[in-house]
C-alpha cells in the first residue's frame, strides 16, 4: 500500500470521525433540550419533539415553505448587493491612499451605526417598501465587506501585477486572472460572516416593516406567545443557512484552493 493511499484513508477516516462528532453533538443538544423541557413542563419551553412535529406540519400543510422562500430571496438579494458593492469599495480603498484617507471615517461611522437605526431610517426615508428593506440589510453588511476586502487589496502581490503589466495583459484579464484569485480568501471570509449577519438582519426588517417572511411570522407568534412556532420557524431557517454553507460555500472554497494541494 502506498503512502498516498494511506494518507487518503487517514484523512477520509478523520473526516468521517469529525462528522460523527458533529452529529453526536447535535443529538446530545436535542436530548438535553427534551429532558429540560419535560422537567420544566411549561408552555413557554416546548420540547424538541413538539417543535419538530409542528415544523413538519407547518412545512407540509402550513405556509412555512412560502415564508422561508420569501426570506431566502431577501437574504440572497441583500447578500449579493452587499458583496458586490462592498468588494468594489474595498478594492478601490485598498489601492488608493487618497480615497482611503478620504472615506475611512465614513466606513468607521457606518460600521458603528446600529442595524436597527439603519433599518428605521430606511423605512422612514424610503417607505415600507421591498427596496428599502433589502437596501437597509445591504447597507448593514457593506462596510464589513469593504473592510475585509480592503485588507485583501492591500496585501496584493505587486510582482504578479508587474508581470501582467510587462506582458501587456489587458485590464480586465489582469483583474480576472491576477487580482481576483488573490482576493478569494478575503471574499470567502466576507461571504461567510456576511451570510450569518445578513439573515439575522433580514428577520428584523421583516419584523419591522414587511407582511411576510420568517421575521414577520415570528412577530405574529410572539404576539400569541406561541414559542413552539417561533422555534419551528427559526430552526427551519437555521437549517437552510447551514445547508447553503455546506453545499455552496465550502465546495466553492475548496475549488478556489485547488492549486494549493
Amino acid at each position: 500500500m502506498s503512502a498516498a493511499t494511506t494518507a487518503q484513508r487517514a484523512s477520509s477516516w478523520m473526516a468521517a470521525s469529525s462528522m460523527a462528532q458533529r452529529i453526536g453533538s447535535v443529538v446530545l443538544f436535542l436530548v438535553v433540550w427534551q429532558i429540560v423541557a419535560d422537567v420544566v413542563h411549561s408552555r413557554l419551553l416546548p420540547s424538541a419533539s413538539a417543535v419538530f412535529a409542528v415544523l413538519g406540519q407547518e412545512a407540509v400543510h402550513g405556509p412555512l415553505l412560502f415564508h422561508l422562500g420569501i426570506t431566502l430571496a431577501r437574504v440572497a438579494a441583500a447578500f449579493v448587493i452587499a458583496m458586490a458593492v462592498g468588494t468594489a469599495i474595498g478594492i478601490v480603498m485598498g489601492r488608493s491612499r487618497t480615497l482611503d484617507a478620504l472615506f475611512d471615517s465614513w466606513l468607521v461611522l457606518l460600521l458603528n451605526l446600529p442595524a436597527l437605526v439603519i433599518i428605521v431610517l430606511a423605512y422612514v426615508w424610503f417607505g415600507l417598501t421591498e427596496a428599502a428593506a433589502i437596501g437597509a440589510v445591504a447597507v448593514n453588511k457593506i462596510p464589513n465587506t469593504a473592510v475585509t476586502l480592503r485588507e485583501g487589496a492591500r496585501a496584493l502581490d505587486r510582482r504578479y501585477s508587474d508581470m501582467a503589466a510587462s506582458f501587456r495583459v489587458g485590464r480586465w484579464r489582469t483583474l480576472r486572472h491576477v487580482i481576483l484569485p488573490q482576493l478569494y480568501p478575503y471574499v470567502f471570509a466576507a461571504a461567510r460572516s456576511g451570510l450569518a449577519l445578513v439573515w439575522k438582519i433580514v428577520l428584523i426588517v421583516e419584523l419591522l416593516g414587511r407582511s411576510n417572511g420568517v421575521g414577520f411570522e415570528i412577530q405574529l407568534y410572539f404576539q400569541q406567545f406561541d414559542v413552539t412556532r417561533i422555534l419551528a420557524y427559526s430552526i427551519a431557517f437555521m437549517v437552510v443557512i447551514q445547508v447553503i454553507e455546506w453545499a455552496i460555500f465550502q465546495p466553492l472554497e475548496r475549488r478556489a484552493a485547488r492549486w494549493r494541494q
Partner: protein
Amino acid sequence: MAPVTPALVAAIREKRYARARGAVPHVALAGLSLQVAAGEFVALVGPSGCGKTTFLNIVAGLDRDFDGEVRLAPRPDGEAARVGYVFQEPRLLPWRTVYENIALVLPPHRADVRLQDMLQAVGLPQARDLYPLQLSVGMSRRVAIARAFAIVPDLLLMDEPFVSLDHDTVEQLRDLLLKLWHARPTTVLFVTHDIREALVLADRLVLLSGTPGRVLADVPVGLARHRRHSGAEIERLRDEILRRHRELIGAAAAPATSES
C-alpha cells in the same frame, strides 16, 4: 549578422527613489546610455545593487518615474514592440495551470497552437495541466522562459533568470535558452553578475558601475559560439574582463572616496 537598426535606445539621465521626507533621495541610475541592435544578445554585467533590475523595469515600461528616454523600435506592422520578461523568480501565477499561465499573455484566439509548440520546445509537453506548485524549480524556470518566448517578443528582458539553481540545471537552461534563441531570433537584454555566464550567452557585454549605475565599458565577445564550450578560453576572457571591470569600478569610485 545583426542588422543595424537599433531595437532599443535607452538614455537614462537619472533615476532616483524618493526616501522619507527630508532624507537624501537614493540615486539608482545616473547617465546610463545603451543601444541594442535588433537580434543582438547583450549581457548587462554589474555588481549587485547597481540598478540592473531598475533599468530592466524602466525598459519594460513598469517604471515611468525617471528622467531620460527609452525607445523601442516599432514592429514592421507599425504596432508597439512586444516585450517578454523573464524575472529573477519564475513569477508564475500559482492559482493557474502552466497552460493558463502562458495563455494569459497571448491574444486569446491564438493561444492554443503556439502554446503546445512552446511547451514542446522547452521540453515540457506533459506539464500543460499542472499547477506551478507541482513543478520542480527547473521546470518553473522553463515555463517562465516559454511564456516570454510565446509572445514572439521583439525584445526579451531577462533578469538573472538562473540564479540560485544548481550547476547542472543552469547548464541545461542556458543551452535551452540558446537553442530557443537560435530557433526564434529576437533581441535579448540579459542581466547577470556572472561574467562567465555572460560570456557563454551574449554577443556583447556591457559592464556597469556600482551605484548609481552607468555604463563603464562595452565588450564585444569575439569568441565564436561553437568555441564557447571550451572552458579554458572562457576562463581566460573572464579573468581579463573581471580585472578590467574591477579597475574601472575602482577608478569610478575613487573621486567619490577622496571627496568624503
